[in-house]
């Protein structure tokens, strides 16, 4: 048991972080917005934490948790502000065009971070202070955060705003006609996802001990989108499950050596073909839940 935690402590926390990142893409997708910007906000969050902890807060010994929480707060806020500024014009685009615009944003952020001296150029920022003595220690922070965000997403799905998101996803014109403000709700969903991605980035910078321009790239965008699509895009359980399974899979398959990524890809293909609704299919869970709702209508 102890050996298990020593070997896989890092992986367990990383799975939770990736699940959170999956949720950050799921939030705009709830309102029908195919955004690949999560990785960009993830990068912003990481840089906020990396710069603050290496250049502003000078500490010796274990890094105070309070500072880490402050960094995550600032990272979340900054990401949220950037999301609103970018989101208002960008969210006029739909579907694949929005996806392209968000890819452009991610690429711009990457090139900017490569060229600034404060972000350390291509080498990035390293030697980021550690608040916990082992990777598993991060679970105290990441575990509750994941539960909290899952609970938030669960409540959101049933709330007025959540229903507005879903109405927008199903038919924007109809939703608009029913008095739902599309711009407001779309930007809100986009900003919520961005704030979450920023927070995850700030924690990840400490967790990985280093941050560089290779972190929030197009590759990450696609990986995170895969969490949502393989996991299931119709309930919050999908991205969480997808993020965890897809992160763990290459490590679980490690004994296969050179074959591991081939088997990994094969399993993903099979999942995409045979479970098109995702691993977490809400119909399985909701069969019992929807019955009383139907009586009401």
């Amino acid at each position, binding site marked *: 048991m*102890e050996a298990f935690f*020593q070997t896989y402590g890092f992986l367990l926390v990383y799975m939770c972080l990736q699940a959170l990142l999956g949720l950050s893409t799921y939030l705009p997708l709830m309102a029908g917005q195919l955004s690949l910007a999560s990785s960009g906000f993830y990068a912003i969050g990481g840089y906020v934490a990396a710069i603050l902890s290496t250049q502003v807060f000078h500490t010796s010994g274990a890094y105070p948790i309070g500072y880490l929480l402050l960094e995550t707060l600032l990272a979340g806020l900054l990401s949220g502000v950037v999301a609103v500024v970018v989101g208002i014009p960008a969210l006029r685009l739909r579907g694949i065009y929005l996806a392209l615009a968000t890819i452009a944003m991610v690429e711009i952020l990457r090139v900017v971070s490569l060229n600034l001296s404060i972000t350390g150029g291509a080498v*990035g920022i*390293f030697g980021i202070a550690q608040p916990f003595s082992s990777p598993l220690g991060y679970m105290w922070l990441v575990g509750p955060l994941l539960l909290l965000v899952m609970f938030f997403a669960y409540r959101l799905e049933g709330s007025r705003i959540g229903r507005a998101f879903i109405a927008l996803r199903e038919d924007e014109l109809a939703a608009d006609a029913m008095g739902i403000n599309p711009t407001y709700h779309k930007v809100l969903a986009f900003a919520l996802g961005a704030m979450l991605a920023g927070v995850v980035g700030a924690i990840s910078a400490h967790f*990985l001990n280093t941050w560089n321009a290779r972190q929030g790239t197009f590759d990450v965008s696609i990986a995170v989108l895969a969490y949502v699509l393989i996991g299931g895009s119709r309930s919050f359980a999908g991205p969480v499950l997808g993020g965890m399974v897809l992160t763990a899979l290459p490590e679980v398959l490690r004994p296969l050596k050179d074959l591991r990524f081939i088997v990994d890809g094969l399993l993903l293909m099979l999942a995409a073909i045979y479970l098109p609704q995702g691993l977490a299919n809400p119909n399985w869970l909701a069969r019992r839940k929807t019955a009383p709702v139907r009586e009401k209508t």
Partner: protein
Amino acid sequence: MREKALSILVLVMLGTVSAQKVTIPIPIGVSVAQTSNVALLGREQVIGAQIAEQFFNSQGGINGTPFKLYFEDTSGDEAGAINAFQTQINRNKVVAIIGPTLSQQAFAADKIAVEAKVPVIGPSNTAKGIPQIGDFVTRVSAPVAIVAPYAVKAALKLDPNIKKVAVMYAQNDAFSTSETGTFQDTVKAQGLEITTVQKFQTTDTDFTTQVTAALGTKPDLIIISGLAADGGNLVKQLRLAGFKGLLIGGNGLNTANVFPVCQQYCDGVIIAQAYSPTAPGSLNAAFRTVYKNTYKREPSQFTAQAFAGVQVVVTALRALDKQKKLDQWDLPELRVALMKQILSGRYNTPLGPISFGPDRDIIQESNYVAQIKMDADGKNGKFEFLK
């Protein structure tokens, strides 16, 4: 239940180490990028390590005790490197780790080894600050600052009339951005003028903008810091645009992989090398022969550095084994002693003689500057020594 979970976590955090003996064959970890887009380098490193495993085991291993390399793929990212290191330390129970491939990965993963007190030898980590990660980190790859200046001096020897220098580098590559800094400092120190600094990406294929801008300043010498594909293409496009002056390629171009990219236009490019296949020494000759027989080409710097990494660990283990047979050591005790032994030794590797300074960084005594000579058909070429 909660108390139990809590006590397990506390135990884990204390990092309780039970005394365990070293297993036979002696496990040595090699964690490099065997997958992802970094695998181009990682595969070369795997080959180098495998040649070393065969070579030293056929010499009797560690004074008669065989050793075994455990390969755990890091893939191309930081998280993958950490996962691979954790597996090496806790599952494979290795005495030392050779890896990871990229400096950025090293900044993330080496910390794990330092906390577990496991020696790490970076086979190709050239960024500033690698040995400073912690007490258990060193490298067999010379930092960029050391290799680059030789090439500039060699160019000045070939053409003493050089006055104006244009510099170009791949801005998304950590190695190239550090290397160009060194190149620029050297150029200024030699009293030459830098006319322009042009940036490109390792993924670029069209360099019209950079080529036009650079040639507009009429340079006598152009220095390129990039990798094989982009650097080779840039060389070709500079020559096609009519550039007649000298070209210096950084360490990223120190591979036969550039030959098919720039073909006959590669001819004459001056390359700074941390490793040269034609370097003297019987061990390099043996290593080169094994490589050439199997792969029908010259070994690259990455292969030689991985070989040297394994060699350093094996040589240090041999010295420790003479003090006390290896199977008598407790694993944690051996790891600590091994690190000390590694740093105190001097090793005659294919890279030439190397040792380690008080800051744990490599001291590589021979650096090479070569000039590319292409065959008449422009298909194949070789690196020719400049002295």
